[in-house]
């Protein structure tokens, strides 16, 4: 009687509520990307070409991979402001190791990545063991990484890198376009992390910790280990991004990455992930990065001044967060 009637009512309501919220937060960014592409295609006949899209992908590769790390951190309700500087440090370490210390490209790359992973671990340790807010921790490590980079490199760009380090910048032909191996690596990483988040227990635990950390703890999940792991993995992503940056520009640039923290957060937000943690789809961050890249490319093709890119990005961020909030409130009614 009671349970039966409840079940009938819930069945009706259930089919209404069931998929709405996640669908909107997944479709929104993609819709925005498609709309933007449609718009720019109408404004310039050079936009809609395989070569141009390949170019845009190459341009977002570094931010794209940094955004993987950032998304994971944000999913646990944290934020990583140090990502760009850690990446720059990684690229300086690996390029100096190859050029000045004469290490083989492979060893140099591993060395650089080890440094970024160490910074990721440091961030995670300060957040979990010393219990400091991630905003503060990563603000501190941002400055530490920056200073070390400048001191070690004497603020000089490192050039003359061995070809072995630049492989990810090499291209292969796919139809009409020249695609870099770096692009393929970025897409692969996104695919793997997406799978892990969706199809493994650890992935679920990331969402649980971000959504309700105390609940996760009470269910026996080691939140300390999980958060530590997330920040350390993010450090690994920044190391790979460092290699991609080096492969793209051909140099180790100590001034690189200074705006990457805000740019990666922009990609994450545009992709529909909530800064409060526990909600979001990692592929959204790729879409978010692409949205920024498409606007930058499209506006240049249209001959529009760069300052408008900045304006539009700001408007998009607010729209993204507002849409997400509105759709969530509606699905709760």
């Amino acid at each position, binding site marked *: 009687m*009671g*349970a*039966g*009637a*409840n*079940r*009938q*009512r*819930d*069945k*009706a*309501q*259930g*089919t209404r*509520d*069931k*998929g709405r*919220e*996640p669908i909107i937060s997944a479709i929104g960014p993609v819709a925005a990307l498609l709309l933007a592409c449609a718009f720019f295609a109408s404004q310039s006949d050079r936009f809609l070409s395989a070569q141009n899209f390949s170019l845009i992908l190459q341009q977002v590769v570094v931010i794209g991979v940094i955004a993987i790390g950032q998304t994971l951190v944000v999913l646990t309700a944290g934020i990583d402001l140090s990502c760009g500087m850690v990446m720059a440090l990684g690229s300086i370490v690996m390029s100096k190791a190859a050029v000045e210390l004469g290490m083989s490209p492979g060893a140099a790359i591993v060395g650089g990545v080890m440094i970024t992973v160490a910074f990721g671990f440091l961030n995670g340790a300060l957040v979990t063991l010393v219990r400091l807010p991630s905003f503060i921790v990563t603000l501190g490590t941002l400055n530490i990484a920056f200073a070390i980079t400048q001191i070690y490199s004497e603020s000089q760009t490192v050039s003359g890198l061995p070809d072995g380090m630049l492989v990810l910048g090499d291209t292969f032909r796919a139809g009409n376009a020249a695609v870099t191996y770096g692009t393929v690596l970025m897409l692969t990483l996104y695919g793997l992390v997406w799978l892990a988040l969706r*199809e*493994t*227990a*650890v992935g*679920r*635990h990331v*969402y*649980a910790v971000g*959504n*309700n950390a*105390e*609940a*996760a*703890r*009470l*269910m*026996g*999940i*080691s939140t300390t280990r999980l958060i530590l792991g997330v920040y350390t993995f993010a450090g690994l992503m920044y190391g790979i991004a460092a290699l991609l940056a080096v492969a793209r520009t051909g140099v180790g640039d100590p001034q690189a990455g200074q705006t990457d923290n805000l740019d990666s957060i922009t990609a994450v937000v545009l992709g529909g992930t909530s800064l409060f943690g*526990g*909600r979001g789809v990692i592929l959204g961050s790729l879409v978010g990065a692409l949205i920024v890249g498409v606007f930058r490319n499209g506006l240049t093709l249209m001959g529009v001044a760069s300052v408008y890119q900045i304006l539009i990005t700001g408007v998009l961020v607010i729209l993204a967060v507002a849409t997400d909030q509105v759709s969530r409130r509606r*699905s*709760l009614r």
Partner: protein
Amino acid sequence: MTPTDTRTPVLQARGLVKRYGHVTALDGVDLDLLPGEILAVIGDNGAGKSTLVKALSGALVPDGGEIRVDGRVVKFRGPGDARREGIETVYQDLAVAPAMTVAENLFLGREIRKAGLLGSMFRLLDKKRMLADAAAHMDSLQIGIASMRQPVESLSGGQRQAVAVARSAFARHVVIMDEPTAALGVKESRMVLDLIRRVRDKGLPVIFISHNMPHVFDVADRIHIARLGKRVAVVSPREISMADAVAIMTGAI
């Protein structure tokens, strides 16, 4: 007081102590949970009920005393240890992840992996099986939530409570509930009390804390009365009146 039972308690606490600075929340408290029973824990504010439950569920580590499961001494360093002993808890604030689905919450911390290499090496989840098991489980408890794929935050308060109780009903050994009917209306409370009985009927002993005397006297087999961090009495609802129970609780008797 009830005559002593000679069966081995499923869960037993002796002399548990917990201090927070100058405040002593548990002052050498004892507890016995017998097989197949519903044990209600009642007490005034500050009697240490919630703290006791948290010590038994591993959510906090007591400063002194011992806990035994089936007569074995155990030490819980975290909630995971208690869960591994087959003790599941429904916390006062439910401890659910609101953005996650019913099925995901039911299996939180005990996710099922796919068979074979996919499960052991790649650690992939068997989502189909979890969905099916979740639906079957809810059916067996007669909980009327249609879709296991709904995010928990879209459910009503009573339904959310039902999910939290259902999750605890996966327990192998003991179910503990902290104020399961506190935030609910009459109809929903009725539903949760029926649920508690069904859990007990499955063979799981239940400890539940409550402020609500009518609810306590409705479902409990025995009542553990807590006062000032100690156990002052264990009574049977059939042998004592509500008024007397309250009097013991407040120290009047």
